[in-house]
Each structure stands twice: as structure tokens, then as C-alpha cells.
């Protein structure tokens, strides 16, 4: 996947975020504070503008630009988490003009999320979709696979993030950050093939 391709990936992701803005915030209502969609949309808008302002000439530059925009515009829990992901991606891709090894790339993102958020699998956070998605990456991943990973967060009881406040009542709701991560993966496989 080259720069051109990766740009399609991200603009697809930003499109998805804007399309699902309301739904993402809705997901965040019962188990959080109902702002995940607004937070992510704010970030997507900022990232788009930053990319237009200074069109990236390398993968590293692109991910760094996006990471900084998210860090400075999203706030909440998802801001630093997604921001760290993109900064980790930028690091991974220093001096490279192609994404040769998606698995290692996403692994670096997951590693960043865990370093910041200190969540392990099963705590009903985006970690619960990043982990299986990254693992499955050596074979082809379908959007159905992604959907089922996202759905799999539904029965979990949250013990990290805002959703932890509702304890047992978090069971039975999809985790918003996992849903937005799912959109990120979906955009990736679509741009990839």
C-alpha cells in the first residue's frame, strides 16, 4: 500500500466517521457520555484540513500530521489513544514509501494504545478489536470478520474508561471506540484490495 493508497484509506475512514457521527455518540450514551462521534468527527475534520494545508510527501509525514491533529482536536480518551496510534504508525514507516507489513504496523498501533490506556483484552475497550484484527492480519480479513469483532464487545463488562462507571449495565452494549476502530479497519481493507 503506497502513499496514494494510504490517503484513500484515511479519507475513507474520515468519511465513515462523519457518516456514523450520530451513531457513535449514541453508542456512547448508555455506557459513556455520548460524545464519541462528535469527538472523532472533530478530529477527522481537523486531520483533513491539516492534510490539505500541507499535502504529505511521505507515509511518515501523513500519519504524523493526522496524529497531531487528533491529539490536538479530539480530547477525551479516544484523542490520545488514536493520536498515539498514528504517531506510532509514523514511527514504523520512517523512510518507507510503502506499507509492506500491515500486521507489524497495526501491532505497533495496538502497542501504543495499551501503553497509554493500560487496558488488557476483555475490558471492553478498542483493545478488544485491535487485538483480534491484528492477529488475523496474516490472512485476508473481511468486513464481516470486523463486524463480528466489534459485536463481540457487546457481552463484555467494562472495567476501563467511562463505561466502567456503569459496571454490569455496560453489558449488552457495543463499545463505541471499538466501533470507530472497526470503521478504521474496514476503510483499510477496502483501500487495500
Amino acid at each position: 500500500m503506497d502513499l496514494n493508497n494510504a490517503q484513500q484509506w484515511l479519507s475513507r475512514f474520515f468519511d465513515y466517521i462523519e457518516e456514523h457521527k450520530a451513531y457513535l455518540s449514541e453508542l456512547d450514551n448508555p455506557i459513556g457520555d455520548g460524545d464519541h462521534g462528535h469527538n472523532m468527527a472533530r478530529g477527522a475534520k481537523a486531520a483533513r484540513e491539516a492534510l490539505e494545508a500541507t499535502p504529505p510527501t511521505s507515509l511518515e509525514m501523513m500519519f504524523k500530521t493526522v496524529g497531531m491533529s487528533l491529539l490536538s482536536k479530539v480530547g477525551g480518551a479516544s484523542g490520545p489513544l488514536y493520536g498515539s496510534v498514528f504517531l506510532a504508525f509514523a514511527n514504523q514507516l520512517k523512510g518507507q514509501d510503502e506499507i509492506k507489513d500491515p500486521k507489524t504496523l497495526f501491532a505497533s498501533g495496538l502497542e501504543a494504545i495499551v501503553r497509554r490506556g493500560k487496558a488488557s483484552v476483555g475490558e471492553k475497550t478498542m483493545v478488544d478489536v485491535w487485538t483480534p484484527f491484528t492477529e488475523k492480519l496474516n490472512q485476508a480479513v473481511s468486513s464481516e470478520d470486523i463486524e463480528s469483532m466489534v459485536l463481540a464487545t457487546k457481552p463484555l463488562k467494562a472495567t476501563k474508561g467511562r463505561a466502567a462507571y456503569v459496571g454490569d449495565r455496560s453489558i449488552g452494549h457495543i463499545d463505541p471506540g471499538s466501533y470507530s476502530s472497526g470503521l478504521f479497519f474496514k476503510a483499510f481493507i477496502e483501500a487495500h484490495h
Partner: protein
Amino acid sequence: MKKILNAPEQVVEEMMLGMAEAHKDIVHRVGDTRVLARNYEGAGKVGLISGGGSGHEPTHAGFVGQGMLSAAVFGDVFTSPTPDQVYEAVKAADKGAGVFMVIKNYTGDVLNFEMAKDMAEAEGIDVDFCITKDDIAVEDSLYSDGQRGVAGTIFVHKILGYYAEQGASLKELKELSEKLLPQMKTIGLALSPAIVPEQGKPGFELADDEIEFGIGIHGEPGYQRVKLQPSKAMAEEIYAKLRKALALKAGDDVVVLVNGMGGTPLMEQYVFVNDVLGLLKTDKVNAVKTMVGDYMTSIEMAGLSLTLMKVTDKAWLDALNAPVKTIAW
């Protein structure tokens, strides 16, 4: 949504401008950042900063000034501020002795403040922090994320602010915070929800005859919904839990804070504090200082919280009573 504003997405910006302009004798805005810093220089002293999502006014900016906070960061309503903005506050507060951050225990706040700490340290500014978790609504929860930082946080601002003004070091403030934090416990209750301007609708719903105990300052769900009950019953419910958590016994000294959530008038807050002080008397616990009013609100939510702080060190009381130059203390 019926609010006095111009545009939902402009609320935080305009509120900041209003605060800075109305109180220009005490605070100023740092450039075009989301930071209000005190005019008082405090050269050579440790800077004390706090911040978080907006919607809790007068927290935090109302407590910026000599003897309390050096600067406060404004996030969007109920959304934690971003690392770059927190970093701006750190820079504004740094007078050579480092900066201490008071963080309320929300994942978003913790993550963003920690990132700002990384940024600042990369620039050679010493930063340390404490995380307030006074809300015991989610009792003996196994996961720290369960306990939120709420109204008790203003005691941390005031007491650390006093010692910072006295010239305490970063290390001393950290140690003090570790003694202080376990001594304050809070539980809130809500009668009606708040509306985040950009969302335009209530964050939760309560029936006309329902109240909820343990609700958070962002409308986080509490531990129990019950029918509307007398003030005295509400006071008993909350006081019993706080007393247990602080292991209060006859002869103990406590500071009492009845904190209005924004939509509850002082009339009700004083009726409630009357019941609370009665319960303390019965247990022979001394209310050595009592505060009543809107200190850490949840926009226009109707309800209040009760905070008790056990005074295990008399010096804390002097620190609380020391004069400050702020907008809202």
C-alpha cells in the same frame, strides 16, 4: 434546549472570553489557547494547574489566582482538554520550580494530562501530578477507573495552592497530596439532568418523582434510583456512606462541602446542609468548616453533592482558611 448562548460550538470560547474580561484584575487568557492563567507572577514557586472538560463552572478557572491555582485548562463541555492545551497551561505555570497537575480521575483527563507531562518533560520542565478520586458512589470498586474526581478536588486546589504559595517543592506537594486525597469522600445526587449544548438533549432521564444517588458530574449513572424523598433521608443515605468510608468517630474534625450542581437553588442547599450538620452533631463529629454553594457543577443539572474531609492535620484547616485572590473561592 433553552439556553443563553450564541452558538453551541462557541460556548466554551465565549465563556472563557467573558471570564477573562470580567475578571481581568485576577486572570488573563494565555494567547489564543484554552488556558486562563493568574496575573500574579509567583516567581520561583511551583506552578499548580488543573483543568478538565468545561461545564463545571466555577471549576476550574474560578480557582485560579494567588494562593490557589496558577492556571486552568478548558476542555470542550464534558470532554477533557487536549495534551497541547494542557502543555500550554504547564508552560504558563512554570516559574522554574516545576509544575504540579491536579487531575480528576477520568480516563480522558488522565491520558491527556499524562501526554502533556511527556511533552513538558521533553522540554525540560519538571512535572508531577495527583489524581483525585473522592467520589465513592461506585464503592469498593476493584478498578480505579470507577472512582471519579469530583467536588473534593477544590480542597486539593486550595490546600496545595496554599503550600505552593508558601514555597513547597514539587516533591513536598506530591507527598502532601498522598496524605490529603484519602481523607476526602464525596457522593452526589441528581433531580434532573444537564444538557450539553452541542448535544442539545439531556444526557439521562429521571421520572418526575425520581432522584438518583451517586450520579457523577457528567451525568455518569449512580448506584440507586429512588422516589423523591425528604432532604433528611437524602442526607442520611449519603452521610452514612461517607462516615463509613472515612471511619468517622466522635471527636473527629471534618470540613463539610455541600456543592450545588448548577440547577439547585441555595434555598435547597441550605435545607440540606441543616440536615447534614444535624447528623454530624448526633455523632459528635465536629464540622470545623462548612461550605455551601455551587463549586463544581454539572451545567444546569439539579442536585448536589456532599463532601466530607477528615482533618487529620490541623494545618490543613489553616490552609483552607487562608485568604486567596480568585474569582470563586
